[in-house]
């Protein structure tokens, strides 16, 4: 009947002279009928999901709710407390066993704490973190404030450290290429997180000290792949860090700028300025190929302490240098990867489950690092560009399984890389887990 009315209405409107007599109400009813037709198809698709709401009792519930507006806010202060085991493993701490607790407050404040006993040095580690965030107006942007205090073990090379993956590799077969230091103290941060941009200011006041290997145990294998632990310079660090991440206007290229400043004027034992700039993005080549390119530049001026150095080698830079990464006060790296977008399961008719979409990629990478004498704590005020002899290059192919956790572009990669040029590097197989643009921090 509704469609008949709509048809009659449309016929009437199509006749000469009729449109001038048309009223807004008639036109809107036609629009409503059109929308209703589309909704009917939705109803048919979703069936019982879109059944009409039973409204019995809702009016009285609303009256009670409006009469007691602050009831819940007054009675609840802590929303939940979640307890979980906290375990970890690396060659300087050995096994770490402990507990973590996290609680969420009504006003968006989160409190998280953890404590672990490390069997290697027979020491207790732990941290307390409190953080609160606010939405900016009605936008999706948020402002976050947080502070952390305690004692922890962290990586010497801060740019690419992924604790979970490194500790898993150390536990399973000792394939952990990180070096570690101890941090005692506190830090505070303020962050603005927008849909496309991120700005963060962090201050930390921590005593940093060197650690030594205390455990050579692994589940499988003959011990740690890297048995020694490079020593950090010991001293109290007071450091300010500014981070800016944005999308370049008019493009889909993203850029991250990081500046760390530590100075005796701030009460710090070290005097350095550390800069790192990353840029990356992707372009489509037809419907089946995508080209992902990333560039990174880092420079350390001032006192060249090991914990402020840059490193070249590993799954986030040159994979052929993974076994023997090099550190220095200046580093530059670029990689382009051509990815076959199509799911290999469909292309090759592989009998694999739906949760295992596979992609194929081929990449070429080049990088350089200079001022290698990090351990000597010299002052680095020299050249800001590498010498032509410092460059190393490689090419590789990879098989990628996109899992979507924690980021939709996160993937496990099995990669084979070949060195380009004459040196002592060899063909290297690596297994890694990373996002597609792994050099850039995620904003959302």
């Amino acid at each position: 009947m509704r469609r008949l009315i709509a048809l009659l209405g449309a016929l009437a409107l199509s006749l000469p002279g009729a449109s001038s007599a048309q009223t807004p109400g008639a036109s809107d009813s036609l629009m409503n009928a059109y929308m209703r037709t589309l909704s009917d198809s939705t109803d048919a698709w979703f069936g019982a999901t879109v059944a009409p709401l039973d409204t019995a009792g809702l009016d009285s519930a609303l009256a009670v709710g409006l009469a007691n507006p602050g009831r819940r806010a007054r009675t609840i202060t802590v929303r939940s407390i979640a307890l979980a085991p906290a375990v970890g493993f690396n060659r300087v701490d050995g096994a770490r066993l402990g507990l973590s607790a996290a609680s969420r407050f009504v006003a968006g404040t989160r409190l998280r704490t953890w404590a672990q006993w490390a069997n290697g040095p027979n020491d207790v580690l732990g941290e307390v973190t409190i953080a609160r965030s606010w939405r900016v107006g009605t936008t999706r942007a948020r402002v976050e404030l947080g502070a952390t205090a305690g004692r922890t073990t962290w990586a010497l090379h801060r740019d690419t450290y992924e604790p979970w993956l490194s500790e898993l590799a150390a536990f399973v077969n000792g394939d952990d290429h990180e070096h570690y230091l101890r941090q005692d103290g506190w830090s505070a941060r303020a962050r603005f997180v927008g849909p496309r941009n991120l700005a963060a200011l962090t201050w930390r006041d921590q005593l940093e000290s060197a650690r030594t290997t205390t455990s050579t145990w692994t589940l499988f294998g003959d011990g740690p792949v890297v048995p020694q632990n490079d020593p950090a310079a010991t001293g109290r660090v007071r450091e300010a860090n500014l981070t800016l991440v944005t999308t370049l206007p008019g493009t889909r290229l993203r850029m991250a700028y990081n500046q760390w400043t530590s100075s005796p004027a701030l009460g710090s034992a070290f005097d350095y300025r550390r800069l790192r700039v990353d840029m990356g993005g992707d372009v489509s080549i037809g419907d089946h190929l995508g080209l992902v390119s990333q560039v990174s530049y880092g420079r350390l001026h001032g006192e060249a302490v090991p914990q402020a150095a840059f490193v070249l080698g590993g799954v986030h830079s040159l994979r052929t240098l993974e076994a023997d990464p090099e550190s220095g006060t200046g580093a530059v790296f670029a990689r382009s990867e051509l990815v076959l977008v199509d799911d290999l399961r469909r292309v090759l008719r592989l009998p694999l489950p739906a949760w295992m979409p596979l992609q194929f990629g081929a990449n070429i990478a080049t990088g350089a690092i200079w001022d290698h004498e990090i351990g000597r704590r010299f002052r680095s005020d020299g050249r800001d560009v590498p010498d032509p002899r410092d460059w190393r290059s490689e090419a590789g192919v990879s098989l990628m399984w996109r899992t979507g956790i924690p980021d939709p572009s996160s993937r496990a990669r099995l990669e084979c890389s070949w060195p380009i040029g004459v040196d002592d590097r060899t063909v290297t197989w690596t297994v890694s887990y990373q996002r597609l643009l792994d050099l850039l921090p995620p904003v959302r």
Partner: protein
Amino acid sequence: MTVRPPSPVLALIVLAALVSTLAPLTAPARADDPRAVLAVEDTMRTEVTPELVSARRVTLGEILDRVARGEARRDSLLLDQSFTATLRLLRNTSTSGSPELFSETVARVYKRRPSQVHTVELRRFVLDDKDDDDDDVAFSPSMGEEIVNFAIRAENRRDYRFTIEDRTIVGDHIVYTLAFEPRSSLAVYEPRGRIWVDTRENVIVRQELEFEQSPVPLLLRRIPHMVVERTRVGDFWVLSRALVRVEFTVPLPRVGRSADFAMMMTDYTINTGLPDSVFTGAHGNGRLHRMRVRAGQAR
């Protein structure tokens, strides 16, 4: 109550229908009657002078610009609104067996500029409620309905490629159907789909989404269908339904392999001047509280 006289055109149509219905009742003409008419030409003919249309056709870019402005205008004109929100989860929706309501939360939501929101929970139902999980669903104070217009927003538009798929004339409305897909071929996990745009007010009235691949293959096998609908309330198009069906890679405890999520908004009031008392807590200090709806536990 005012009764409007029927349109003359409609009256003519009804009259013609009546005449054609009554025609067999009249005496049939005899074949040997010289006045008999055996066939009547019933095709209407008319001729119009061809006219060359020189007006420039509206481009896709202009349509998108107008829609972005129309959405911004719509948002700016909304001062306050209230609606009844129903959050519903049905399990077993695309596998064998019949769908079953797993949870339903009904709430009355009040929003007012600049950033006030107050939610009164009216009903909560969870099937086989056993645990004490305390997951909340918070309503944003925004009235911009980003779930409808995310693709044409300035910050996202360069990430999508748009095409005009269809154009329909409905009364004096022109409804464009625009298809969009991620500009990056690598973004196989990002939504693609089509939006229906009413160009009289330049607002999106409906959106259908699909995903070439699941955003989280390890957890979600696929997302077969997602629909976002708006309905007209007074002078505004407002979100009425957001529906999505998902299939899980591994069966979720108590939910199973598939589920439908539905968010339905009804009983809107818009720009009615909501009183301060709606947003003021019981503490008596005039502080504005942001209340949340708990979705996942019966009380």
